[in-house]
């Protein structure tokens, strides 16, 4: 089958329309502070039979359904898009992080898979009709599919949410990202097994053989292949032009992996994903190269796939409110309960656990890729696919605000400015350093049920080691005690008080910082924030002029 000049014209035109709309709606989505991928999926729904196709069927058909040859060519591009998407997803999976994650992350990872998977599996197995099964004989595979589709957290959405909420580089951020990576890896392995069960096996291997081949491939890549790639990469880096050489190497390997897994009977994307993990594990793959690869896939290939989702399905005709609601309930219940419990058992507070639960709740690309393949394999009906896409959209959109709510409630991730409460800010006329420290300790222990004596002795012990009088009229006495969250009290001394400061200047702002004993890094972080915020004399002088607590907090926020 050859492409005629007309076919080629239509092929490029349709690609241009797809890419343009994906970007345009994607930008609107970003403007509305939503994930880019949501815009891209909506762009497909707009362009597909749901809106454009039903309003202008002729134009729709001539652009997207003109000839078999164009459809095949477009299909090729879409497969390429998914393979590239999975390759870059794999590259960013930090295998060592998954394997070496701490207790909390491990619990969240495991519970974040077990709970949604079992809930989804059980409901789909016992009430398959309610969830819209297409062939009742495929009950087990269908239940496995629903379980898996509910278990995979959308890693890119998680990363963006953590970035937007400014908690990427925090304990909770690490727990969420590590668990989301684990989810991804686990989800794709289960997914490949399901595909084998559906009978996607193009070479007629037994299911058992396929599973053995699959696990041998994963084990080989993780134990040996990974090391070989790590050995070769520095040479590629040294002897080829940058960044083309590495980019070429990565894509070539990804495609070989894709071809291999397709050959053994597992979908091509799985090979690309596993190769991606093996490549991404190398310490020689520089951060800049990772970013270039990400941009390359994100801006060209991924949108083609996402926009294609809605291109051949009518979302209005296939909208079944019962199935949609059921999927939403299962999705929220499974992830929030599972991950939340995991985090709670791992030692996080109730608020933090909820934040983890909602942070992990976003679904996206992976469910949809899974759904697309299940749809193609005839495992699910279109209305299940539509419900799946809507579930992905709703969970992704709701993840950030819900998570933010609980992050704020859990005071641990607040900046020092948010930690300062008016009741803990006062103007003092104390005559000595120890007098003002006593006043500060009284203030904190009065409001937070802390033993005043113990707190005072801890602060004074630290003070004896080396004075906490810094420069530019600032002093930060501090101590680590057994409390769950950090506390701050501020004393303002209009004239300044002798505090054995480094520059000899009297302290006008005396900030008492009390942090949990089990988190030494949090103390350093807050000390660093405080000394950075009060880094000039004028600022401190202005703050010292504050007439009362709320005035001080207002001035502080304005000056920061």
């Amino acid at each position: 089958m050859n492409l005629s000049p007309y076919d080629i014209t239509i092929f490029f035109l349709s690609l241009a329309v797809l890419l343009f709309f994906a970007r345009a709606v994607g930008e609107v989505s970003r403007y509305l502070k939503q994930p880019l991928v949501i815009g891209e999926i909506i762009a497909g729904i707009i362009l597909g039979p749901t809106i454009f196709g039903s309003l202008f069927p002729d134009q729709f058909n001539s652009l997207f359904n003109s000839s078999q040859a164009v459809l095949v060519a477009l299909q090729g591009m879409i497969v390429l898009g998914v393979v590239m998407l999975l390759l870059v997803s794999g590259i960013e999976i930090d295998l060592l992080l998954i394997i070496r994650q701490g207790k909390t992350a491990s619990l969240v990872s495991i519970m974040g898979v077990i709970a949604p998977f079992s809930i989804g599996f059980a409901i789909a197995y016992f009430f398959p009709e309610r969830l819209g099964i297409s062939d009742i004989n495929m009950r087990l595979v269908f239940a496995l599919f629903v379980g898996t589709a509910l278990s995979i957290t959308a890693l890119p959405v998680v990363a963006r949410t953590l970035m937007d909420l400014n908690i990427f580089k925090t304990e909770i951020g690490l727990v969420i990202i590590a668990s989301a990576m684990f989810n991804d890896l686990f989800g794709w392995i289960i997914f490949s097994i399901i595909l084998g069960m559906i009978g996607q096996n193009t070479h007629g291997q037994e299911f058992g053989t396929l599973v053995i081949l699959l696990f041998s491939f994963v084990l080989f890549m993780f134990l040996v292949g990974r090391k070989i790639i790590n050995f070769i990469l520095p040479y590629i880096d040294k002897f080829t032009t940058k960044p083309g050489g590495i980019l070429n190497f990565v894509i070539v390997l990804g495609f070989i992996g894709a071809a291999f897994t397709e050959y053994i009977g597992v979908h091509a994307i799985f090979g690309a994903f596993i190769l991606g993990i093996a490549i991404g594990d190398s310490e020689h793959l520089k951060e800049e190269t990772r970013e270039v690869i990400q941009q390359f896939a994100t801006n060209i290939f991924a949108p083609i796939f996402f926009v294609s989702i809605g291109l051949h399905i009518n979302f209005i005709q296939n909208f079944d409110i019962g199935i949609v609601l059921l999927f939403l309930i299962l999705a929220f219940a499974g992830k929030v309960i599972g991950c939340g419990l995991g985090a709670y058992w791992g030692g996080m507070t109730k608020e933090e656990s909820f934040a983890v639960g909602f942070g992990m709740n976003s679904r996206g690309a992976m469910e949809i890729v899974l759904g697309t393949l299940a749809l193609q394999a005839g495992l699910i009906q279109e209305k299940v696919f539509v419900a799946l896409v809507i579930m992905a959209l709703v969970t992704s959109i709701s993840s950030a605000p819900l998570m933010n709510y609980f992050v704020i409630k859990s005071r641990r991730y607040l900046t020092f400015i948010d930690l300062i409460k008016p009741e803990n800010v006062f103007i003092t006329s104390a005559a000595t350093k120890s007098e003002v420290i006593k006043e500060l300790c009284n203030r904190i222990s009065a409001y937070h049920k802390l033993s005043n004596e113990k707190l005072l002795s801890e602060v004074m012990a630290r003070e004896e080691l080396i004075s906490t009088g810094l420069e530019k009229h600032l002093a930060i006495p501090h101590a680590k005690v057994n409390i769950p969250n950090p506390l701050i009290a501020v004393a303002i001394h209009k004239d300044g008080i002798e505090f054995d400061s480094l520059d000899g200047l009297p302290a006008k702002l005396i900030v008492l910082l009390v942090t949990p004993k089990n988190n030494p890094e949090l103390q350093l972080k807050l000390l660093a924030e405080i000394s950075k915020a009060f880094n000039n004399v004028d600022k401190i002088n202005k703050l010292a002029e504050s007439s009362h607590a709320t005035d001080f907090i207002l001035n502080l926020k304005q000056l920061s």
Partner: protein
Amino acid sequence: MVFKKLGLAVTFSPNARALLKTAKRLQELSSAQLCLIHVGDKSKSSETQLLTLLNDVGIDENKYEMIWQNGEPSKVIIDTCSAKGVDLLIAGALEKESLLKYYIGSVARTIMREAECSVLILTNPSEEQKPFQKFFALVEYSDIGETALDKAYKFAKLENAKELTLIKEFKVPGLAISISDDNSTLEIEKKRADWKSEEETKLKVFANELKLTDIALKTVCLYGKQGWVSSNYVRENGGDIFIVPSPVKKLKLFDRIFQHDMEFIIKQIPCALLIVKSKNY
């Protein structure tokens, strides 16, 4: 005093003299006791050979304790150190082992991974004794991290070192993924720079808290794979000694396959390496 009892596995290898000289120098520097361990039979000839070697190096016979013991070398050395209360074991090692030996584990690598006391590894011991001048210490905000830094500081002061560089590594896994949701590389670059400056301030605060005031102190924050970036940094900057806190658990084969941060340092040792263990290791 940095260490109270030094241990050294004595062999008749070409490096033996250099290692003995280093042990002698460090013993004198910290007024420590010295325990020499020889794995092998105590025969007349080997005893004479060893005594000649010790005489040559100038180690006074009253200033050391000699242990002869048969068995699997790394096990004998580790067990003897534990039994004799050695708190610093000195050993020589190749900068890099062959791949097979790295995975199977040579004597020196096994000692680094499994000894219960702190270990000083010399990759290139020289007979001409010079004090370590460029100290690098890996910072970890934990109890063992503080102990390691305290040892590094005291050791550097004893050596009258030129400078002590504190290195803090950090990495935010999955950062590049956020690009796939349209964070531009510029935004990520900026974010990373902000985090770096935050880490640098934290590191300075940490150093202030520990009162490391008697030596020229430098602080460096590195972004990247932990163990690997610091090790490279020390190598590129011509470090004389790199002091690192030990992992909380003994390193096993699993930690070589799915590399532990410390394994990146052990795999290719950048210079003399001091692994500080906690007392209750």
